[in-house]
């Protein structure tokens, strides 16, 4: 007897929330991908837990697919990040389009930006 399924779900929910916070608040393309990974991971945890709860191997299969999709996503995503970085010399998601930043934020953080 392990824990109730609710607890697994709760764990998934907390991890998913962390991933969400990461994607929504970090101004760094790389960290956004990290947040996505965490969210996918949370989903995988819940799937595996559900597979155990309902005695279905289906949940594990889904988790496997999630891993595969994550792999694909990361490879393409990181390639795009590299590509963008080469063009704009920045990982800031707000500065990637047309390689310009909204004027206000640019000014506010100008001294801090290194390269």
């Amino acid at each position, binding site marked *: 007897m392990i824990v109730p399924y609710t607890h697994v779900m709760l764990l998934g929910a907390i991890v998913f929330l962390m991933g*969400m916070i990461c*994607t*929504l608040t970090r*101004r760094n*393309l790389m960290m*956004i991908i990290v947040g996505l990974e965490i969210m996918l991971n949370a989903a995988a945890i819940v799937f595996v837990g559900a597979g155990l709860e309902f005695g279905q191997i289906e949940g594990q299969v889904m988790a496997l697919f999630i891993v595969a999709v994550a792999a694909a996503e990361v490879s393409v995503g990181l390639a795009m990040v590299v590509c963008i970085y080469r063009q704009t010399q920045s990982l800031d*998601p*707000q500065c*990637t*389009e*047309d390689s310009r930043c909204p004027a206000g934020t640019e000014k506010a953080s100008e001294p801090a930006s290194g390269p």
Partner: protein
Amino acid sequence: MLFQPVPEISLYLAWTAAVVPLAAFGAILVFFRRLPKTAAAISVAAAAVSLICAVCLLVRHWNMDAPLQSAVTWMASGEFEIAVGVLLDPLSLVMLVIVASIAFLVQVYSLGYMAGDAGYGRYFGFMSLFSWAMFGLVLAPNIVQVFIFWELVGLSSYLLIGFWFEKFSATRAGKKAFIMTRAGDTLFFWGWLILLVWGGTLSILELNSGAHGLSSAMTTAAALLVFGGIMGKSAQFPLMTWLPDAMEGPTPVSALLHSATMVAAGVFLMARLFGFFSQSDLAMAAAMAVGTLSMLLSATMAMVSRDIKQVWAYSTISQLGFMIMALAAGGYAAGIFHLTTHAGFKALLFLCAGVLIHAHETNDMFELGRAGARRMKAAMVCMTAGALALAGIWPFSGFFSKEAVMGALAGADNRLWLFCGLAGVFLTAHYTFRLIFIILFPRTEAAGGPGARHGSVSANAVMYAVLGLLTVFTLAAGFFAQGFEDFIRIHGGHAQEGHLASLAHIASPVLAVAGIVAAWMQFGSNASDQVGFAEKIGPVGRLFARRWYLDHVYAWITGRLLDRGIAEGCRRFENKVIEGALTMITGGVVFFGRMAAGWQRAMIQPKLMAAFAVMFGLILILLVV
């Protein structure tokens, strides 16, 4: 039974008289514009046919005892029908003959006068159009037909005044004439709308007999509004200033339209609806006031004008004022008789003026005098005859009709009208003979015969024949006064001669002679300086010469109020408000479009946010609801 049907032959005659000129107009404009001789022949032939028909009608119905009327429905819509037809009574018969004969004579005269003009064919086409319109108006048995032809008369007047369209002033005068009469027509339109909608009838005979459903207040309102149309067409105060300007047209046109017939259409309408007008004392009083005012004002204007045609134009307004005064005083026969004699002698005066102008190519009476116009003896004799008639001297026709008018005025309630009328008689004689004396007794005179200066075409025999005929008419017409009165008075009102009548009958010729004597002293005798008493007083002279500043009022109304006021306001409204609202709407759409597009640009996190918000928001809603 108000009327009897028109006998078939008379009907044919009336229709022929009216329709032949239309056919001539159509034929000339479509086929013969480029063939001046043919066009003129067609037009004159049409006028002759009309004249013959008119005379036949008059002769056939000399002894009529009830009006004859017949009409066919031309157009029907719902309950409203427009009927065209023929109403034959003494008034329409007389008017028909006047119009037909003057039109015929003027067209014959024009054969010589207009010779060589580039628009010869067009001129005769428009003349035919005018004849048609005038016949339709005269014969009309109901107000709608009156109105239709009333407008057409205005149209032909516009076309003929602006006949020499290269002349800027001519086209402006044409436009002014059309607009000012149109302003009157609008009142007329309102008036007959009241008659139609609330009175329930437009038949002239029913209106005259009081067989309509209008209360007395509405009758007055309708009568006043219809009188508005008469003011426009007969150039009465305050819609009077178009008529002197209309003298920009060819002189025969002035003779036909702007003195003898078209402007008389207003008076004709008043006579036509005499029974109806009689039902409203207020309307009659207003008509009397307007007639008197116009008569006096235009007489003063005539006293200072130097343009020979304009003097006759002012005198036309003045004489029309006399006619309206007579009608308003209840002198039905007097008014119409004055209309008849006036048509004759005014056409004569204009045609004589035309001969002089044609020969010397100037309208200025002083220049005409200096150029030796008095050597054109025949023309001068005819003109003097016309002038004597206009001034009201025995034995010319004007004397008799003016006596009748004065008799009618003497019967009016208020003596003021009679005294104003008598003053008018004096002024008329004065300004008429001012003109005659200035031409006859120039201070200096150029050498050479008529037309020598410009080598222009002198009048030909046909033109003189016309002048002769009209002179004979002017001399003779007066002696048929009694017969005319008996004929016309079949159903009209009867003016009772007041106790002042004898005074009026004596005072009128005396004042006329006094006017001539005054003119002699100022313009005729060798000692005079040919400056009138009005001109000697500067402000008064200016007031008269500038037409009592009426034109300034109109210029203000069209220029300031309409053009730069209302119209400009509307234009600004169009540009600012309507276009502005449009710009705002399109701007708003573009703004929201940009905003929506902003979400589609590179902002990853807002998009993610939106996606999450929508997804979890939906889940939340699904769970809760």
